């Protein structure tokens, strides 16, 4: 991560774009997932009502979040679960470290949790001498590669099977040159089974937390969350505070939407409801704020907290598909990540709301109807007003405003532009002009509309 920290989205996307066939492959693979989502959604005549209902449930949650959190906590405690509260990433990491060190545990298995990516938990625990192994196959692959996930649902979607084969050969002892997904998955199964059977602590994320019952629901296809949690002495669940839903019956809405939107499956293989710890074992839930309460107070952006992390907005986004998840330099990439990240650090993530064509496809596929592209547009205005735009863009915009404010200058500039496009396109279409990195200009007309209109008036006199 550190090498990418100083680069912005266009620079990182340029690195990804060096390998054009790979970009095409990445683009097509994600579009295929998006197409599967469409097929699954179109099978349900009530799909739009489901989305609307989910969005309204989340409205209710966000408008009563403090009381739902208290209700959830009280019921979880009644169930024999220990509840912790973390104001920020640092406190989250410290709580987990303390839980482990109090038991003398120095190795933990972890299933998918984007929150722990957001908090950089693995790096923190490693510094404390605690080894963490990610058990989701995609996450294990990127962990072995020393990279962050590039997609919240498909963590290693940017990797080719041959590269994964090389990683497994180096770290897990698979045969050199082996790239069959079946054989590589079996290699990981054997390796991780040993991990599940030997770890005393397991960490999982949380998909939904039910205020009414104090239970948490975790969804996986692999079964890795359950293997870890049921075999460990202590199960720690890291949960963003917005994961709350009011009642158990509301799962009947969200579980119908989640995987259909994510991968086009009707449901994940496992939807596990954890209410009470097993005899002699412990469940700890860490409720994390880390900027969420601030986002709740931003009227234009609070709807982003409705997100159920399906990844549909990424799969459909033309910019995400062609620039890759790592170009967003944040734990949650893509359109949703681009409206969440500026809340955490507006300066660091000032580039992300601009990594969009504002085509609106993200909002159209969002299962909880977040107005993602409107929020991207609104963030741009906030960021410009706060003075976080790149210098070159600010200068260009100022020049543009000056020219447009004077009719004489505007006419002269137009003439000059048309002449340039016609006789000297190389003067503008070159590496020194960043505008052309993103665009192709149309052929310049012989005359402007203004000139044509004036001439026409003369002829008809």
């Amino acid at each position: 991560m550190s090498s990418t920290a100083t680069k912005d989205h266009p620079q990182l996307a340029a690195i990804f774009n060096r390998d054009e066939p790979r970009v095409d492959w990445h683009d097509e693979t994600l579009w295929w997932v998006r197409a599967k989502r469409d097929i699954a959604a179109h099978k349900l005549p009530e799909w739009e009502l489901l989305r609307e209902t989910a969005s309204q449930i989340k409205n209710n949650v966000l408008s009563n979040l403090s009381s739902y959190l208290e209700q959830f906590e009280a019921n979880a405690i009644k169930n024999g679960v220990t509840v912790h509260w973390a104001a920020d990433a640092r406190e989250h990491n410290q709580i987990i470290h303390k839980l482990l060190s109090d038991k003398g545990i120095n190795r933990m298995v972890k299933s998918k949790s984007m929150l722990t990516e957001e908090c950089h938990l693995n790096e923190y625990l490693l510094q404390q001498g605690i080894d963490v192994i990610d058990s989701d196959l995609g996450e294990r692959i990127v962990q072995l590669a020393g990279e962050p996930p590039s997609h919240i649902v498909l963590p290693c979607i940017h990797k080719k099977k041959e590269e994964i084969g090389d990683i497994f050969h180096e770290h897990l002892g698979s045969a050199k040159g082996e790239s069959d997904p079946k054989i590589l998955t079996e290699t990981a199964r054997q390796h991780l089974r040993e991990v599940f059977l030997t770890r005393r602590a397991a960490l999982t994320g949380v998909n939904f937390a039910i205020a009414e019952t104090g239970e948490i629901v975790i969804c996986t296809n692999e079964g890795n969350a359950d293997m870890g949690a049921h075999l460990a002495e202590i199960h720690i669940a890291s949960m963003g505070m917005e994961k709350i839903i009011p009642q158990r019956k509301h799962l009947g809405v969200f579980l119908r939407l989640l995987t259909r939107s994510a991968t086009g499956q009707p449901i994940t293989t496992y939807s596990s409801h954890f209410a009470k710890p097993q005899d002699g074992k412990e469940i700890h839930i860490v409720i994390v704020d880390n900027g969420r309460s601030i986002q709740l107070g931003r009227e234009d952006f609070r709807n982003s907290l409705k997100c159920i992390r399906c990844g549909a907005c990424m799969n459909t986004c033309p910019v995400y598909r062609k620039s890759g998840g790592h170009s967003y330099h944040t734990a949650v990439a893509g359109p949703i990540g681009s409206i969440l990240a500026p809340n955490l650090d507006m300066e660091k993530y000032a580039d992300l709301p601009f990594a969009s064509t504002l085509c609106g496809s993200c909002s159209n596929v969002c299962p909880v109807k977040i107005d993602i592209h409107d929020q991207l547009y609104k963030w741009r205005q906030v960021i410009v007003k706060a003075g976080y735009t790149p210098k070159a863009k600010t200068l260009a915009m100022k020049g543009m405003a000056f020219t447009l404010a004077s009719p004489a200058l505007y006419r002269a500039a137009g003439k000059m532009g048309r002449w340039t496009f016609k006789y000297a396109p190389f003067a503008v279409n070159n590496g020194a002009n960043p505008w052309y990195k993103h665009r192709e200009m149309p052929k310049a007309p012989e005359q402007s509309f203004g000139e044509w209109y004036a001439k026409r008036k003369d002829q008809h006199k």
Partner: protein
Amino acid sequence: MSREKILAAVKANQFSHAELPDLEILSSLTNTNDNLVERYTTVGSAGGSFVYEVADYDAIKAILQKEFKPGVKIISGIRELGDYTFVDDVKHDLSHSFADVELCILASNLGVAENGALWLTEEQMTVRVLPFIAQHLAIVISKNSLIPTMAQAYQKIGQSEYGYGAFISGPSKTADIEQSLVIGAHGPRSLSVFILT
């Protein structure tokens, strides 16, 4: 204490009350009980499960005897399938000791036609890790326990109390390597569903 600080910040920033929507329309729209077995079988098979319609437990035994060699470790949570180790007899064993289970057979009282998911609580699993750690899983359900969608599923589950429960809709799987579907990630390599008619 962060708890008070967080709750105060949330309280200060949450907006005026928004009502919860009515779920009744969604559940009545989807509440069609025609061809539930057929619908379940189509979706379950597409999700990688082997779905059998069987008349009685003898039919299940016959299929299992064909699929699993004698001598492998099989644990059953169903009294009627008593030829195998009964789960109640080993429920105090360490969870880790089930790592060599070849087949686990459990019962479910709730199956969902729209997605192939079967609901099992700790009561039916007896040991939570069993349906995950076994190399293969078989689940027996009565035809009358099938319902159309998740909306009806949660109506049926209602306020019932459990320590742990899970919807299981197929074998453990992953498509993390280049989106190629591979059956048998960390959990069972197969799921056989026996629908008792």
